[in-house]
């Protein structure tokens, strides 16, 4: 077959489709979003009717994927790294239940926090759940490993993790496809107690998972992805994980070095392979994209006699994404000085789009908050987080999906009254609704502003789960209809909107203001679609 030019995300999606996927489940999150989008745009997926609708959050996605696996079919669940925190309960327990149809959990980490709140390393989660993890070093490996992950998942009846990072997710290269496999047919689990995690059953399932560990290690030793590449100079042996292999190869080619390399792209770690590799080399360097997991497992608390270079001993930066320059500097101190950036170049941070409704929400809110002073606005994850930057300076927190609601509740419990919460529509349905129920039950004196642009805008305009039903959701949770207001955030409504917010801030109980205006980016898209339709008719 011809090579396809694919993003890492797209290679993963294509591999899953070719592996006989029956359903993809996901909530959008950079850098994982393009996996689901590729499947949604795939004609083959449409023809085979592969499930490809967005889920309300990562937990519902993980559980639905597990349900599809229960029914015997192959399922893929995708999320960004912090999404796995949301899905963690289902994720960890899915390792105990095990799977029926193949289940691959794809997590896209974001070292250097290009679009995230932290740079947690999902390999830890893989270890925590005690399941196999693949960490591909190039787009072709993304494709091949995803297919192998499904097979391995069915062979050992466990979920298998694909761990990629931003650089892999959003980089294109040629990928060769393999033959398309048929979908599984509907089939209940052989043991109908497998998925009932009552303690008596869970204890046995867990023992089974522990017993599988040696098989997972054996696979990591023998499958061929982890391998030693011989080098002439054994003063240093380099253990390189995933993408770090690319930086290392480039650096060694440039510096004309020839050290032995142990390439790690599959976990749990191949213990024997590592032991013999370490024995053969005088000193060891560990290169890994993310936390120093492999390095820590080598050094441990009892220091080994061999010198180990890595993120922990300062040979490489302790945080952030790796690159060829960092690796070269670790291998050779005599690196040329960098050219300096001209001092006239100003920072250009992202900003809300011209005409964005969130801006009008913040202008009205800032005005209404003048008499209460700073430090009372709890916000959330989305485009509207950009309201933290000048000139708006409108919000005081951004922590995790849904935290705006519950942090405002907690602050009001402490006496910070009024407290305000600002959340988007998609984030509200993702994780804000349950917090609102807490606020309803206590009649917390907070004002919740749902800035509803009717899409998931920051990740590029995906469906919003609560579209058209935000009022009903609030009413259903028990919000007093007298204090459920709707405003249209336009500049011309500034005064009236400010007044509505002021009124609700005066109220010593829970109020919800829905500020609804379509995302300007979406409006342009819809206009284009309408024009196309009009042209055809």
């Amino acid at each position, binding site marked *: 077959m011809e090579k396809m030019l694919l993003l890492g995300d797209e290679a993963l999606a294509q591999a899953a489709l070719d592996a006989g996927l029956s359903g993809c489940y996901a909530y959008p999150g950079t850098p994982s979003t393009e996996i689901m989008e590729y499947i949604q745009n795939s004609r083959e997926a449409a023809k085979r009717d592969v499930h490809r609708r967005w889920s309300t959050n990562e937990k519902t996605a993980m559980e639905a994927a597990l349900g599809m696996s229960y029914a015997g079919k192959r399922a893929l669940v995708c999320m960004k790294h912090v999404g796995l925190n949301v899905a963690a309960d289902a994720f960890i327990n899915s390792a105990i239940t095990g799977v029926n149809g193949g289940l691959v959990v794809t997590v896209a980490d974001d070292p250097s926090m290009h679009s995230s709140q932290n740079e947690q390393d999902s390999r830890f989660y893989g270890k925590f759940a005690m399941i196999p993890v693949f960490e591909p070093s190039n787009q072709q490996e993304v494709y091949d490993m995803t297919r192998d992950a499904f097979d391995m998942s069915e062979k050992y009846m466990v979920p298998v993790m694909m761990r990629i990072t931003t650089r892999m997710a959003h980089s*294109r290269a040629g990928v060769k496809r393999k033959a398309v496999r048929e979908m599984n047919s509907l089939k209940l689990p052989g043991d109908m107690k497998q998925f009932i995690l009552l303690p008596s059953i869970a204890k046995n399932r867990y023992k089974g998972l522990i017993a599988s560990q040696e098989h997972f290690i054996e696979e990591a030793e023998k499958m061929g992805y982890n391998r030693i590449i011989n080098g002439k100079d054994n003063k240093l042996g380099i253990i390189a994980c995933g993408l770090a292999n690319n930086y290392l*190869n480039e650096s060694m080619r440039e510096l004309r070095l020839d050290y032995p390399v142990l390439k790690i792209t599959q976990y749990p770690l191949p213990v024997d392979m590592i032991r013999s590799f370490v024995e053969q080399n005088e000193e060891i360097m560990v290169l890994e994209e993310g936390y120093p997991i492999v390095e820590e497992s080598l050094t441990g608390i009892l220091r080994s006699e061999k010198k180990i270079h890595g993120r922990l001993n300062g040979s490489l930066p302790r945080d952030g994404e790796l690159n060829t320059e960092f690796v070269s500097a670790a291998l050779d101190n005599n690196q040329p000085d960098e050219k300096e*950036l001209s001092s*006239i170049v100003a920072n250009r941070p*992202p900003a809300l789009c011209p005409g964005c409704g969130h801006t009008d929400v913040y202008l009205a809110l800032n005005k209404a908050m003048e008499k209460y002073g700073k430090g009372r606005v709890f916000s959330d994850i989305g485009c509207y987080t950009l309201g933290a930057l000048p000139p708006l300076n409108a919000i005081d927190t951004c922590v995790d999906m849904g935290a705006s609601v519950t942090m405002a509740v907690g602050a009001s419990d402490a006496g910070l009254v009024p407290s305000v919460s600002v959340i988007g529509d998609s984030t509200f349905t993702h994780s804000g609704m349950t917090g609102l129920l807490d606020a309803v039950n206590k009649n917390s004196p907070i004002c919740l502003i749902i800035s509803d642009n009717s899409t998931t805008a920051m990740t590029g305009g995906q469906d919003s789960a609560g579209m058209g039903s935000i009022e009903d959701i609030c009413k259903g949770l028990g919000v007093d209809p007298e204090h459920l207001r709707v405003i249209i955030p336009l500049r011309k409504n500034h005064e009236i909107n400010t007044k509505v917010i002021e009124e609700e801030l005066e109220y010593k109980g829970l109020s919800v203001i829905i500020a609804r205006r379509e995302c300007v980016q979406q409006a342009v898209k819809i206009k284009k679609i309408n024009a196309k339709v009009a042209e055809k008719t």
Partner: protein
Amino acid sequence: MKSDIILAGVGGQGILSIAAVIGFAALNRKFNLKQSEVHGMSQRGGDVQSNLRISDEEIFSDLIPKGTADVIISVEPMESLRYMPWLSDSGWLVTNSKAFENIPDYPDIDLIYKEIKKIPNHIIIDADSIASEMKSRKSSNMVVLGAAIPYLPMEWTDFETGIRMLFGRKGEEIVQMNINALKAGLKHSKT
């Protein structure tokens, strides 16, 4: 042969279309290719870049190391300077002259031109005006790409093919408009 290219601009200015055309052109020559893109938060009016690596050898890293880029192609003048630490001593900088001012502290444009002119190999092109004259304001990014063609390892016909592959679905009129924009940019570099 290797050509490491940094594409620079502001989110929403269409650098990914430039990347796609170069990518298709490179594939047409059967070169190896890696192309790293920026998606996510920065696309909201922040600075964005794409690293494009073309070679007849195996390409390892998705990222271009500092001091080694062969060409910087920028659709915005200040953004072209942001990637100076990546440009090699013999590298070319090709940039649009039109500033995109969405920040309060945007520097004096003449200072920016002065900085750009310190680079031995530079081309400053008023792509927005050229595209406007041709009544296709949207293809100013293709004008900039056209101006960079002499410094890229593919031929004119490869780029033409690239444009067809990217815009073909939108009809012949759009294809021609972009080819004309590309031609206008190339003409500017050659004169």
